[in-house]
């Protein structure tokens, strides 16, 4: 039995859930289902959609929303917050070091070849400092839980983490659907996220930008899967949503084309991967980027959030070294644990993984979104054998982890509540003014009974995440 967010190990209802349990007991039959239908209607009308690649039939799909909140008590959260701040601070220091003096390589903390030959390592950044020396302005750290104190980091998303619009929209929806629940519960507001982000991005602007820097959100365009989120964020921040063709570089500075002529841009919150940012430096076939952007970046006239080359910190192979990295840069013991991981690049580990494929989760080092992974216990014999071949051919590309008993949370399924596995992605903002965590996050839930895959591209849903004040 997995740990349940509501009933723990099967005993009494946990304290943070008691109010909800009472409310559920009093709720008239069919209320949750009715509210659930209402939520779907609202979301469809507002167009809160997510494009699913390879699904021609419905290129704009709704992510299922579960109306039962995931609740985190004040003490639990305080621990998580401390751990997240520690971890993201270490990641920023690690990136500054990797692209600077490389002390952590010299000290033997991480193998040089793992960094320098990593596809996510950006040689362009070697010896450079982004404005204010902040590398990961926005991180989305994926956490899973196996017990009362058992939080593990599954992935550090340091490139262009998405999902924050769901954190905000889900809360809107819950307040609309269940106003009386909020009257009884001291839920910390997440609505401040836009202000936090804006303040954080401002503080990261180049010094020359002055007191009122111009900020933009850079999107690949309406056909990107997360376009809704990009336009949502630009709207909440009150800044322009730009595409690559709206920007140009002149004399080492970035400008946007406006109806009143050119306007200099100081901070680009970019939702485009490194490889597509600047066709002159990276992929020449990229039509999404801005020619010359890297020249301006190197001249220090513009801030990119996140910085170029941060992918080397959330790479699945580098992940395995994160506990050592945290100790090295903070001098502290890591507060949040890593999931024990076998690096298939090491022959001993590979042997173990091949012998235990049926019990393990195997992931492609560069993969994301739940694509290209094997969940041993849920896979068929044929799938396992097919994966074994891939693994033997290219062991460097894979890591393996034990199948964690992810915690479950009560979730509505055909009118009844059942425990379904969940994870949690809190959002962490870094600026010269410090590292801050938004009091909430995105809870993803695997809607199929027993399933451990929570990715929205693989049929996962979302829940509102409540962080309690007391």
């Amino acid at each position, binding site marked *: 039995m997995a740990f349940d967010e509501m009933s723990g190990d099967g005993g009494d209802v946990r304290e943070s859930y008691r109010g909800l349990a009472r409310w559920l007991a009093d709720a008239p039959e069919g209320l949750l289902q009715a509210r659930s239908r209402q939520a779907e209607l609202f979301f469809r009308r507002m*167009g809160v959609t997510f494009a699913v690649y390879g699904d021609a039939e419905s290129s704009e799909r709704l992510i299922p929303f579960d109306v039962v909140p995931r609740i985190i008590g004040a003490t639990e959260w305080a621990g998580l917050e401390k751990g997240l701040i520690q971890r993201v601070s270490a990641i920023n220091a690690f990136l500054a070091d990797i692209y600077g003096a490389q002390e952590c390589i010299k000290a033997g903390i991480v193998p040089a070849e793992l960094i320098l030959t990593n596809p996510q390592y950006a040689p362009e950044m070697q010896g450079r400092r982004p404005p204010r020396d902040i590398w990961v302005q926005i991180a989305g750290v994926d956490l899973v839980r196996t017990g009362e104190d058992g939080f593990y980091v599954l992935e550090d998303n340091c490139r262009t983490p998405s999902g924050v619009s769901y954190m905000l929209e889900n809360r809107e929806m819950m307040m609309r659907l269940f106003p009386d629940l909020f009257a009884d519960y001291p839920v910390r507001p997440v609505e401040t996220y836009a202000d936090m982000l804006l303040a954080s991005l401002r503080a990261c602007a180049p010094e020359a930008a002055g007191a009122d820097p111009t900020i933009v959100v850079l999107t690949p365009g309406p056909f990107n899967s997360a376009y809704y989120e990009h336009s949502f964020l630009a709207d909440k921040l009150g800044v322009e949503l730009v595409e690559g063709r709206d920007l140009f570089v002149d004399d080492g500075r970035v400008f946007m084309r406006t*109806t009143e002529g050119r306007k200099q841009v100081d901070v680009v919150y970019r939702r485009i991967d490194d490889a597509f940012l600047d066709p002159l430096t990276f992929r020449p076939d990229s039509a999404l980027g801005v020619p010359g952007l890297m020249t301006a970046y190197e001249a220090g006239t513009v801030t990119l959030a996140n910085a170029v080359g941060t992918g080397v910190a959330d790479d699945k192979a580098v992940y395995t070294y994160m506990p050592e990295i945290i100790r090295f840069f903070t001098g502290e013991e890591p507060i949040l644990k890593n999931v024990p991981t076998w690096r298939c690049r090491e022959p001993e580990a590979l042997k173990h993984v091949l012998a235990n494929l049926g019990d393990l989760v195997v992931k492609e080092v560069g993969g994301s979104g739940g694509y290209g992974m094997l969940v041993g216990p849920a896979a068929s014999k044929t799938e396992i054998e097919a994966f074994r071949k891939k693994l033997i051919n290219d062991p460097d590309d894979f890591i393996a982890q034990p199948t964690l008993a992810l915690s479950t949370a009560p979730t509505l399924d055909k009118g009844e509540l059942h425990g379904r596995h969940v994870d949690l992605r809190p959002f962490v903002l870094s600026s010269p003014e410090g590292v801050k965590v938004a009091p909430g996050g995105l809870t993803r839930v695997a809607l199929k009974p027993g399933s451990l895959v929570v990715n929205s591209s693989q049929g996962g849903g979302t829940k509102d995440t409540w962080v309690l004040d007391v």
Partner: protein
Amino acid sequence: MLSRTADSLYWTGRYIERADFLARILEATIRLAAIPTRGDGDAETVWASALASAGAPKALGRSPTEKSVREYLAFAPDNASSITACITRARTNARSVRTALTVELWEAINGAWNGLAEQGQPTRRDDFGHFLEWVKTVTLSVEGAASRTMLRNDGYYFLRLGAAIERADNTARLLDVKYHLLLPEGERVGGQLDYFQWTTLLREVSALTAYRWVYRDSVKPWLVADLLVLNRQMPRSLASCQTSIVRYLERLASDYGRRGPAQRLAAERMRAFETSKIETIFQAGLHEYIQSFLAENGRLGQAITEQYLS
């Protein structure tokens, strides 16, 4: 405002207006084709004239038929300016600048696009007629949503500017239909058929009643032209469209604190309207007048693009 945002709004305005115009052209043509005449091949001439007014005289080769023209102007995927394509493009443009639109306007445009699938591609004449009715209704609701809910700032002005430029273009082309509609042998100017052709045009811009109110006279070609070219009371006339264009351009200039080539060009053309008389226009040739108007309108569109949209 981003130039691209302005550009998308401008083209949303243009495409919605064009969809409405195409529906009107098709309705007019169906009526005209229904008039019994003596000669053979007159129906083909009528449908060819519809293509010419839509700006694609050679799109279907030498002998366009009712079926091929209807299909081409309403649904053809290879015609970038079919009704279906216009609504789709308006929606694509609107979607890329959603935050610049009000919820009501977005829902009207998105609703029109969603409706395309429900409407299908009717081939029977009466079903096709219903389709054209539907197109006029949805474009009207887009227009209404814009005028009722949008803030009066640059976004609104660009949307309206696109619609006004397009509408000027369309009125001019509609008027030119008559030029392409040669009277068959035996029919005289001012005769039954000639009369019917002019009233059909008026009806298609919802101006037949307006005509009677303004002129209190039977339908006469030069008065119809006066109504559609110079009359300021008539919202579709070239002069009215020009007044709107000047108004929106001047608001932009005052909001931005700067006038440019587009404002100067528009003002220059407005002065030309103020001194025009319909008699002079007819003497020089209505068709020639319209052709030169279309060229100037194109230049103005180009000036707007260069000044604001790129």
